[in-house]
């Protein structure tokens, strides 16, 4: 279909909104409340264009044959500018960070807004949760967080309340986020165009530890960080920065830089063996993965029957496994007292911040930083990230496999587990170790594999709305992986802003590139893993392994 835009003909797709069509044709219409993949709600009234002498919002208008659109008239510009001006006073008063990653800050420049004629009026108390914080004084009521929480995460932790300019985002009955069924996934942070929702920073604490000469400060980085950290330093999405990341963290003053991928390999050994034991005993099935703390909290709130029915694996998440290995195995080898070690995890995720405060976990990870915080830390030390020479992880806990690497993307945990479960279970080599049916962005992916004559059915879901779907037919499967965030950890709530599907696709490609590049690609072939079992844990699921690497869950209300 053809329409006319600013007196030029362009070809458009009638199933896509004008906003997206124009974007495809290189015309960017400023917008705030629309987020790719969500239903347009058309609240912000910024994405205006003129059709037939009327102003319409392009995010929820679809092309029609013969349409004539004007995107640059005086009227359009004035209206966009005034609506942006109306949003500014509240936000401007409290926003200290003029952040290039925040859509609003970008838009006011484009619109040429130089003066705001109104005074701020909002007076909300900020909700300072343990991992996710919200400041309604900064909020511009775009509704993206509410939509993401409901449509993508099916958690409904927040919604709008109040009317007119008293309308504001809140958990039900004005509770704090900590007191409601919020899973701390941070997807609302990723959605927010103005930074009104953010992670609870732990930078000051980490800086203090780095200064303290009596402390041995160790950092570990999650599988997905190397695929996204570059974006914070203006490198194109999908650039693998493993070597630079390690070099930069060393320059920040960390005594050791370890690889959470090794923790992932350990998880696979434990979880894979757990699965093989269940296969031998004929159940209980399905076994469900527990690497994602967002999913764990979701399960504890909404699906806690899975705890009694023993469907949940008992494995700790990879960085918690590595955390405790650092404070036991590594401490002993390096002859450092446990209490002098500080473990910092760089994670894609605010749920990991929450996880490290869980009482039953008695976490050995002291601080969790998101990808964004790690970038802030690196900037704090004025490190020229882009021009760093590649370095390697510290060898003590620094060798990992492609299996650990793919943990960063949805389907990765399953793929890694199947590589090991098949080879350990059958004693045979896989002819092809890539599980193509587990790769890609589909919300739910399924497949089967034969291990020792038994047909094993597996399924993978990302995004908790999809998880809800999968749970309806969970009994059809033997093994299920769930990741809370869209695309898995590469789409986590702690990743570089702003959110865009395109970036997640590129990060995913980078993850699989890392897998293909590594000489070892199966967890059970990792020499350090073998060494840890030989010298320290005996064998997977041994008594000691159980004590250190496994955990339990609680039933939570709504």
């Amino acid at each position, binding site marked *: 279909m053809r329409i006319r835009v600013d007196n030029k003909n362009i070809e458009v797709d009638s199933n896509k909104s004008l906003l997206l069509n124009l974007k495809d044709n290189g015309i960017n219409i400023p917008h705030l409340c629309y987020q790719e993949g969500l239903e347009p709600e058309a609240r912000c*009234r910024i994405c205006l264009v003129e059709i037939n002498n009327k*102003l319409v919002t392009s995010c929820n208008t679809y092309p029609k044959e013969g349409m004539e659109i004007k995107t640059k008239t005086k009227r359009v510009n004035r209206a966009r500018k005034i609506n942006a001006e109306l949003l500014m006073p509240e936000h401007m008063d409290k926003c200290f960070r003029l952040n290039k990653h925040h859509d609003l800050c970008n838009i006011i420049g484009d619109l040429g807004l130089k003066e705001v004629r109104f005074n701020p009026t909002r007076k909300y108390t900020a909700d300072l949760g343990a991992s996710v914080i919200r400041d309604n004084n900064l909020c511009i009521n775009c509704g993206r967080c509410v939509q993401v929480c409901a449509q993508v995460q099916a958690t409904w932790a927040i919604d*709008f309340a109040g009317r007119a300019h008293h*309308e504001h985002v809140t958990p039900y009955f004005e509770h704090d986020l900590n007191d409601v069924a919020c899973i701390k996934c941070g997807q609302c942070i990723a959605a927010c165009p103005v930074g009104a929702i953010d992670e609870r920073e732990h930078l000051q604490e980490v800086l203090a530890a780095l200064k303290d000469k009596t402390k041995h400060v160790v950092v570990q980085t999650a599988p997905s960080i190397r695929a996204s950290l570059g974006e914070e330093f203006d490198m194109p999405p999908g650039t693998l920065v493993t070597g630079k990341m390690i070099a930069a963290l060393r320059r920040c003053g960390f005594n050791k830089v370890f690889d959470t991928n090794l923790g992932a390999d350990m998880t696979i050994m434990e979880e894979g063996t757990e699965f093989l034991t269940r296969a031998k005993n004929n159940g209980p099935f399905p076994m469900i993965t527990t690497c994602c703390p967002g999913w764990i909290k979701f399960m504890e709130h909404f699906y806690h029957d899975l705890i009694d029915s023993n469907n949940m694996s008992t494995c700790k998440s990879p960085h918690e496994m590595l955390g405790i290995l650092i404070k036991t195995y590594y401490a002993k080898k390096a002859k450092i007292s446990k209490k002098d070690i500080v473990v910092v995890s760089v994670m894609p995720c605010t749920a990991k911040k929450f996880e490290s405060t869980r009482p039953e976990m008695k976490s050995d990870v002291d601080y969790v930083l998101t990808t964004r915080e790690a970038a802030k830390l690196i900037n704090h030390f004025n490190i020229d990230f882009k021009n760093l020479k590649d370095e390697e992880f510290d060898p003590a806990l620094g060798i990992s496999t492609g299996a650990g690497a793919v943990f960063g993307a949805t389907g990765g945990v399953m793929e890694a587990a199947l590589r090991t479960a098949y080879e350990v279970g059958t004693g045979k080599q896989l002819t092809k170790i890539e599980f193509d049916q587990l790769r890609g962005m589909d919300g739910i992916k399924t497949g089967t594999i034969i291990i020792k004559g038994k047909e094993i059915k597996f399924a993978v879901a990302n995004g908790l709305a999809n998880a809800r779907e999968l749970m309806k037919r969970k009994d059809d499967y033997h093994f299920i992986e769930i990741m809370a965030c869209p695309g898995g950890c590469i789409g986590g709530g702690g990743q570089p802003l702003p959110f865009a599907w395109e970036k997640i696709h590129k990060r995913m490609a980078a993850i699989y590139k890392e897998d293909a590049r590594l000489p070892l690609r199966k967890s059970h072939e990792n020499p350090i893993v073998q060494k840890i079992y030989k010298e320290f844990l005996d064998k997977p699921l041994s008594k000691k392994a159980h004590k250190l690497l496994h955990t339990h869950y609680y039933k939570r209300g709504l």
Partner: protein
Amino acid sequence: MQIKKQTKGKALAKAKKLGQKATINLIKEKVLLGRGGAGFPTGTKWEMVYNEPEKEKYLICNADEGEPGTFKDKFILEKNPELVIEGIKIAMFAIGAKKAFIYLRGEYEYLENRLKKLIKKANIEIVVGAGAYICGDETAILESIEGKRGQARLKPPFPTVKGLYGKPTAINNVETLANVPLAIYYKDWNPNLRLYSLSGNVTKPGIYELPLGTKLCDLIKLGKPKNKIKAIYFGCFGGCMPHCEKTKLTPDDICGKDCIHGAGTIIAVDEKHSIVDVATNIAKFYEFESCGKCTPCREGTMRILALLENISLKNADMKDLNTLQELAEVIKETSFCGLGQTSTNHLLTALKYFRKEFEERIKEQKDRRRIR
């Protein structure tokens, strides 16, 4: 008054005899236009719902009369509720709805019991609103009945295609439905008779039934004003115009003057009152009633009120009038739903016809400060 006539179920019986299609056609022939404000032909609306293949359909009687100065639906529901119930039954039959809802304005709750008694066994449920003006908007009514926050929905899909619970739904106003039995039963039913809610600076406010085309000043005379009337407001959303001998009560005559004829609401303002104060009052109403969904209405109505309060009581200058004008225009052009889009009509028309009053007020305040 035509609206006080009764049909005692005979209209319903006649409709049943005619069948669905013929009833719809009869309503079309008689040109019954919606009385909620938009004036959409009722028969056509019914036909759209009737033609939808979906089996489940709904009828909603909109009794959420929230427009300031409008009280004709209340008048009908008090004086002749039987007629409304019969209208609902006929509409349900015509479009094929098994269930109907009466969405009753929160402040009219006292009418609920009386209506319930009249409904008897018919499948009509009364939902009492919580007092939000926005819920007079068709789509916000749907959200509200479904138990959600009263905010307008995106159109399309239109309610006739996907309305309540996603099913085809006809939404008719009380006055419209009351006229249905009359139109069907009485050969001499006059489609041009309208109910006018008259209020403001008159000594005899109330409901007047007059034909379209009546001179506005004749209606005002019926209200017996004490002083000379200078401005007429057509409800809040309709905007205002100077009172003039020639104006007739027809959509064309009034809409041509950038006011909206709407639901027959006439508020008279006399010489003793300042338009600036009226505007501030109305702005207060919108600042309170905006649902909060979209930027221009949520933030804009609040800024308009602040500016007006500044002009009328404190310290403004002429520049503020421009800001006011600009804001009012953008709110009208870009708001999400009818509430926002019409929320500044009163101000835009006031600024057009009575700008002097605003300018004078600004000067007055300035002088007063100088004296102090």
